[in-house]
């Protein structure tokens, strides 16, 4: 925990399990999310979510319901309230419904899964999201991804054109640059004549989840998702790339790894991307010779500085290195533009 109360020390990815689960469930394009708990609990997290969405003009506002548990439900159990909320959610004709439990629902032992299993016309996923169980935002995010992965095994695979299915897994939906990162990965994969077949889960209609078991390559947002992805209902030995590429070399390695995973020759793609990187660096040639300082852990940023002929030294001008780090060559271009404004 940081004792510095500044906003920059308050990342959106910290906090309650419920917030993490909500960041995933609310990104199902045709989904309805029920927060099974007191309305205030829902309000707090939904406010956080909507604040993040306000950063993105035109963003879809997700359908979120609370079953408004009060003292009576705490005493007698909240399962009936959840049952009613599920009926209400179904009237929105969603592709799927997510039930996110809260601390109080977990504490009184409501069996959300049993309520969800009652025959309904819409698939229901249940995500245990009681923050008091010790988890935080990431545990909620992973629990939700796991729940939708389990759902994917029950859905028919949609008909698609021939070609390998590449799935992005675990995009950080509260990240301002989430779509920029996906666009960059789409551009890189395009060099191998590949497309992103599934964004799991970001603005994805439920029916597309049926693609997950058919995926030929999983590209994980971060290495920490590997353990979760290992349990996905995908075909045995489905390759994973563990982390979006950050840095010049890592971006080229991404192309090589993707090609190798799918049995494609990535040589030409790498050469073309290397030339593109050279062109990007040339655009920022004016930064050459600048003296900067960087956080110790950002080796990829040192690589960029070296490539531009900049001097990295503790006495140099401190320049920002965003966290999370920028993805691909496009991310580096955005970073250099930012440095350029400072230098």
């Amino acid at each position, binding site marked *: 925990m940081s004792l510095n109360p500044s906003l920059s020390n308050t990342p959106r990815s910290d906090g309650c399990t419920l917030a993490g689960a909500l960041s995933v469930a609310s990104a199902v394009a045709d989904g309805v999310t029920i927060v099974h708990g007191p309305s205030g609990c829902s309000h707090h997290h939904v406010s956080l979510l909507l604040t993040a969405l306000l950063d993105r003009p035109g963003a879809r506002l997700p359908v979120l319901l609370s079953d408004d548990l009060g003292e009576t439900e*705490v*005493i007698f*159990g*909240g399962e009936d309230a959840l049952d009613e909320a599920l009926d209400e959610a179904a009237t929105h004709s969603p592709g799927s419904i997510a039930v996110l439990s809260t601390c109080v629902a977990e504490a*009184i032992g409501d069996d959300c899964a049993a309520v969800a299993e009652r025959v309904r016309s819409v698939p229901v996923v249940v995500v245990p999201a009681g923050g008091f169980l010790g988890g935080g935002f990431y545990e909620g995010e992973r629990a939700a991804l796991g729940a939708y992965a389990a759902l994917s095994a029950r859905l028919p695979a949609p008909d698609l054109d021939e070609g390998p299915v590449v799935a992005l897994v675990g995009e950080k939906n509260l990240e301002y640059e989430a779509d920029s990162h996906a666009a960059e990965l789409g551009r890189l994969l395009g060099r191998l004549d590949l497309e992103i077949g599934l964004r799991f889960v970001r603005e994805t209609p439920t029916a597309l989840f049926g693609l997950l078991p058919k995926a030929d390559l999983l590209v994980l947002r971060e290495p920490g998702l590997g353990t979760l992805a290992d349990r996905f209902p995908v075909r045995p030995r489905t390759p994973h790339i563990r982390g979006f590429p950050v840095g010049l070399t890592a971006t080229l390695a991404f192309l090589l790894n993707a090609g190798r995973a799918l049995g494609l020759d990535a040589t030409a793609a790498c050469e073309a991307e290397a030339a593109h990187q050279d062109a990007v660096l040339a655009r920022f040639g004016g930064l050459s010779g600048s003296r900067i300082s960087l956080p110790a852990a950002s080796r990829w940023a040192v690589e960029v500085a070296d490539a531009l002929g900049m001097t990295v030294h503790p006495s140099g001008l401190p320049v920002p290195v965003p966290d999370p780090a920028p993805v691909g060559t496009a991310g580096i271009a955005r970073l250099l533009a930012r440095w350029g404004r400072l230098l």
Partner: protein
Amino acid sequence: MKQIALYGKGGIGKSTTSANLSAALGEGGRSVLQVGCDPKHDSTRMLMHGEPLPTVLDLVRERGAANVALEDVVRTGYAGVRCVEAGGPEPGIGCAGRGIIATFQLLEERGALEADVIVYDVLGDVVCGGFAMPMREGYAEEVYLVSSGELMSLYAANNIAKAIARLAERPRCRCRLAGVILNAKGMEREEELVRAFADAIGSRLVAAIPRDRVVQLAELHRRTVIEYAPDSAQAGVYRRLANDVLENTDLSIPRPLTQDELESLALEYTTL
């Protein structure tokens, strides 16, 4: 006003003891309120001649707390004893402990907690903060542990003693242990054992209620022993208990035993 609570292991006879105690107190001219704090809501059944009471929590669920009046939940039974049942959720769902808290809040808001003696009959062990609430919030100022000589019963009583000792450390908590009541199972050296237990935890045995068939007969007739067999020896025991409770000023903060101490004590009074 005396506010007493009877705690003990499930099935040990808290409700029978509470109802007979209330009946004896009422018969003696005291105004008495008995509050059953158990979801199975049968604490006051004998006082009400088997008439089931609408429970506080059932009415709260049906109407909302704002629409529950005192006369809806308080009924007068034998010897003028006013009876209330908290009720609670079905087994396996919800939080009965929170139900106890909600019941007490409602009764207090409606001004129901007024009498010469209020008897709280509380479910089994102190299973969570909700069931400790009568002690914690100052409703139950004098706690009586109801126990037999069985080890599990003493174990539960010792656990409640732990809760009292813990709560007594809080400045605003007035809860104290008032004594141990033996509700005998007819075991060998049972009274000696329970008396020794009471002494060991820094309290005393206030009553030894023998096992007597008249208790079962009275229950079958939906009466307290005080009403069904007023001249019986058992009724006399309950009346003496009522007198002792009224006169009891010997309140203590218990010193609960360790598991080993408790087992050693039980072994000492067991014939192998």
